[in-house]
């Protein structure tokens, strides 16, 4: 799949997801987290290229003092919850234009739901 197709399909997936309630599979989400783990540790304070995600749920975007966030994320006013994570992971540049995360997005709604279920469970 080319990058442009990937972006397109993620935009379509974003339209389709609203209100879709299905059982989330945190176990599957743990597997999907492999796409994130090269940059995001789940341990508190263990920042890599991206910030550690420990305690991310309920936190304001760009809140940690010991990680250098992009101005775009600082300005975003986002509080991380299921919904905001869902749209950010689907298409990071669409959700927060000019943020610095080098990630093209996760196109499948079910994948995102499972991933967020894992983040909710594992990164308290």
């Amino acid at each position, binding site marked *: 799949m080319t990058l442009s197709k990937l972006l397109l399909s993620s935009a379509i997936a974003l339209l389709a997801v609203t209100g879709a309630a299905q059982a989330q599979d945190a176990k599957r989400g743990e597997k999907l987290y*492999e*796409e994130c783990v090269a940059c995001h540790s789940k341990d508190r304070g263990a920042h*890599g*290229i991206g910030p550690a995600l420990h305690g991310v749920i309920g936190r304001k975007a760009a809140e940690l003092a010991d990680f250098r966030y*992009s101005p775009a994320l600082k300005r975003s006013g986002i509080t991380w919850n299921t919904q905001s994570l869902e749209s950010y992971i689907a298409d990071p540049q669409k959700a927060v234009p000019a943020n*610095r995360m*080098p*990630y093209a997005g996760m196109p499948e709604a079910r994948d995102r739901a499972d991933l967020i279920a894992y983040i909710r469970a594992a990164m308290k």
Partner: protein
Amino acid sequence: MATQLKEVDAVIVGLGWTGGILAKELTAAGLKVVALERGGLRDPASDYALPGVRDELRYVHRHDLMQNTARDTLTIRNKPAQEALPMRQLGSFLPGEVVGGSGVHWSGHTWRWSDNEFKIRTLYEERYGKGYIPADMTIQDWGITYAELEPYYDKFEYCAAVSGKAGNIRGQIQPGGNPFEAPRQRDYPLPPLTPILSNVVFSEAARNVGYHPFLRPSANASRAYTNPDGSKFGACQYCGFCQRFGCEANAKGSPHMTVIPIAMRNPNFELRANSWVTKVQKDSSGKRVTGVTYTNVLNGEEFEQPASMVLLCAYAINNVHLMLLSGIGQPYDPVSQKGVIGKNYCYQTGAGSTLFFENRNFNPFMSAGGSSATCDDFNQNWNFDRSSHGFVGGFTVAAGVNTALPIGYRPVPGGTPPWGKEWKAATAKWYQTAMTIGSSGSVMANRYNCYDLDPTYKNAFGQPLMRMTFDYTENELKMGRHAAQIVNDIAKSMNPTRLNPASVRQSWSVVPYQSTHNTGGTIMGTNPQNSALNKYLQNWDCHNLFVVGANVFPHNASYNPTGPVGALAYWTADAIKNRYMKNPAPLVSA
């Protein structure tokens, strides 16, 4: 006076791919290891992260991750009769100077060199007769076989997240891969990168004229990956800033995010960055090395680090320089052809064309370091008859984009003025519409292409600069002419609006960047008369000295060198762990 430090089991000089692999392997085997790296320690989270990493001026034009020529450089000449002059700005090649070495800024192209190279003299003499190899061409067999190295290639490919498609698994030709590659035991750890448009259109054209294009294997993770050591990779984002940059997505296989952090977590390991090794010390017998002398470049303080074993793992050129500065082994003399240190320096050659297609957009800003479709019909393909062209060696033919930078990538058709209004109009018109087809060619060793110490110029430590004497010979010109013809024939078959045709490189120039693929100088071989090192990269004179890197290659192939560089580092690590540690002695009797 130099401060005397406590003896360690092994000191590693230079911490890139080879030093990193040996540091990880030997500390895991229980050895106390100190690594001395002349460059600094960078932190990927601040140094290779967005947006700072996409600073073309800093990394490409000001060489932020490369050797600082104000401190040490080489003198360069084409012919022995010329006076060599210092290279005051990097050009043709770019040695890394940072923890991670050139493994931070490489593109990731990872090949398996085969017996075509390792048994070169035997194979050419068998097939084309003894008289086929010119008298001044000092090629020789390497003393190692592909079968011996195969498991170590595999190890390196799985460590570095190489994405590609096997062409030959245990003798079975695989669709989609390189049908000419040497047989491998299993496929690459990751599927090939997503092809970009120039890969697709070139592959179609090459297939139409009967060649066998495939997507080049490269250490750019095509998807998220955890390697067998547990190092985590993100997926390549095709950001277009690969070669000469650290990776912003942790997707490029690099020592600073794989083997080096593993070594650093081991209490047996110590890294000293900003540490410049000036000499390897020998004992009075001259049969053993005893350690190294180095300077902390931040404050000028000098140290002696004794060690039971010394591993030279610096950039290929600097390993050879250190051998010459330390007086280990007999320096090579091109007149008498006696001596081995400095012998068989080789580079690469090539020919490139640029094709312009009006109204076709290639989006060159979107690519991975390894976004290339390649044909091996004139290289690894042993059935290709070299005798009708009269050369030894081979060349690859490939198309793609590697790092089409905003400042540096400005393709314009021939005849366009190099500046001004017309140039601006042309660069705006053609930027999106250009693609290149290029060839990379081998360079065979020649008796006059070599290194020695410069008689005039000195570095910041008062030591003689390395002198490089190199030019292409008739062999490379014959091959280059054939390569240019093949490239141009494929290019013309694609009917571009405009074509800048490929032409042969007549003479080597140090000024424009070509490739950081310098080989030879401390070559491996079958005996101490023809080589500096045995097949385990152990020095023939001092058995507790190992020299690792492309400096061990007796000649240069058309392929990029990092595959065998990584494989040989694992091979040497195994020889040290399994044999040398039990019985510290020559691993091959002279």
